[in-house]
């Protein structure tokens, strides 16, 4: 009986094998390699030595890691938690009041930035924030003189670009969530004389709080992993001024050939992802017992 039951689970095996080989193994290998001096070429490539916690010690004595960690926090907080999340909610709320034609047109514009291949979106953003680019042309029209965004304010440029690129996701989540808010509740509040913002803070937002929580988790995870956008726009520069953790891991491993240190940085990122992932799973579990 138990054998027959286990046999039923046989079709799950291919998925388990793939997940073990290509997802779990790299994670385990990452943690292992982060304790070695593995490198891209040379002697340490063929025969990496165990170096204990050296890579992690170096992380905190080096200037580049704390800076990259801080820039990652700024990038996630500003472009995901503030930018995408708040703008996505705002757009979704405005859409509940506006004409259908307007909301579907604007929805298409917002989604376009999200559906485009990331490299194309990155080129478009690069051109937009270029010294001669569209943004400075627009500023010129109103009489301003824009700076060289990618050079002087690289973080501002990549935060705005990532907000532009990713807001569609939050917008879609919140549109679906707002569509589920029962109409009579906010009508009743309207009758009771509640103002717009009161209805929002006391009724609408509490009703969609689980969507807000899941959305925040998901966009945080997506933004933590952003590489291409930054790589194309600034390549982490000038100097390290826009080097977030994924960019730092890439540079250490592939530009400087230090796989050991690169995997140590990657391991920190993986751990961060795991923490957010665990919170996310927990949230979803509580939502449907």
């Amino acid at each position, binding site marked *: 009986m138990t054998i027959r039951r286990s046999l039923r689970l046989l079709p799950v095996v291919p998925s388990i094998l793939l997940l073990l080989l290509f997802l779990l193994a790299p994670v385990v290998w990452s943690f292992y390699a982060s304790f070695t001096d593995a490198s891209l070429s040379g002697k340490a490539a063929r025969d990496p030595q165990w170096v204990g916690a050296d890579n992690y010690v170096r992380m905190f004595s080096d200037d580049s890691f704390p800076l990259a960690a801080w820039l990652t926090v700024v990038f996630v907080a500003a472009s995901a938690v503030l930018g995408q999340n708040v703008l996505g909610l705002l757009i979704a709320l405005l859409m509940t009041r506006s004409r259908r034609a307007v909301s579907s047109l604007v929805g298409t514009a917002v989604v376009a930035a999200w559906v485009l291949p990331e490299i194309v979106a990155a080129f478009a953003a690069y051109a937009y924030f270029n010294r001669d680019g569209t943004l400075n042309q627009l500023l010129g029209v109103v009489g301003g003189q824009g700076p060289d965004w990618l050079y002087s304010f690289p973080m501002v440029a990549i935060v705005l670009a990532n907000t532009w690129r990713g807001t569609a996701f939050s917008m879609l989540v919140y549109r679906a969530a707002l569509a589920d808010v029962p109409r009579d509740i906010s009508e009743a509040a309207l009758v009771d004389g509640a103002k717009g913002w009161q209805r929002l803070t006391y009724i609408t937002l509490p009703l969609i709080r689980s969507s807000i929580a899941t959305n925040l988790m998901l966009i945080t995870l997506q933004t933590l992993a952003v590489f291409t956008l930054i790589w194309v726009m600034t390549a982490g520069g000038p100097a390290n001024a826009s080097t977030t953790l994924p960019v730092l*891991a890439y540079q250490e491993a592939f530009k400087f050939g230090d796989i050991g240190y690169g995997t140590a940085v990657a391991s920190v990122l993986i751990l961060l992802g795991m923490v957010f992932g665990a919170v996310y799973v927990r949230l979803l579990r509580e939502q449907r017992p």
Partner: protein
Amino acid sequence: MTGSRLRAPAGADSTTTTRSARSRARVGADIALVVIGLCFMAPLLWLLLAAVDPQAGYQTTVPSTPSTDNFRAVLTPELLFRPLANSFLLSAGTAVVNVLVAVLAAYPLSRYQSRFNKPFMYTVLFGTSLPVTAIMVPVYGLFVQLQLLDSMAATIFFMATTTLPMAIWMTKNFMDSVPLELEEAAWMDGASNMAALRTVVLPLMRQGLGVVFIFVFIQAWGNFFVPFILLLSPSKQPAAVSIFSFFGQHGAIAYGQLAAFSILYSVPVLVLYAVVSRGMGNSFALSGAMKG
């Protein structure tokens, strides 16, 4: 919220004020949305104009002599067709592996109660949240060890695995909505599980499978970082990577061609997205991914 009508009896005056206040709110919302929409379109404007402007720079200008020169310049086997064929091979391969493996995994999870189901599904969900860019350094190391670097097949399987958790999650949800009764009838007629899956369940969830396929295809098509790390020879690289090398080599002079190239490379996913969102409502990806 907006279309709501006051239920409380109110005087004619106050009804008129509410109505005009509401239409004012609607106009306000429309204006705000249009402004936001224009901001979102602004970065794309350059792409569209530069593509038809042989003298394009980073400035957004209406081309003085619009032409299709840029498109004709990139329409060569070397620059466009081979990379696009590689992109297609990678994306279609990834999507096929995903749908096959996800259907197999979803079937027992959807059809049999087992203590194994819940932990597995939550592990899978947890897997969706791993930052893929973070594992690229270790994956590169793994591929070197296993001598899989520059292998198209291995890259397909890796890419398929990164989207597999999402694919399993979506496929199981779609399968859950196929009623069990039809399958039981097939069992009565002596069909095996796998035969029932093939002849009864899968045809009924065709649309859902289409969504999973397209969803994975779009992600793989747009993926830059994975093939950038794992595929080394230019003859195997997909458009995402070749366009990046083109940008590195000629970007400083051939902006117009870069824009034309970008547009040609983007069209397939824009079309696929339109197909899916037309059919399934705008939140297609989320309906499968987030609702239980």
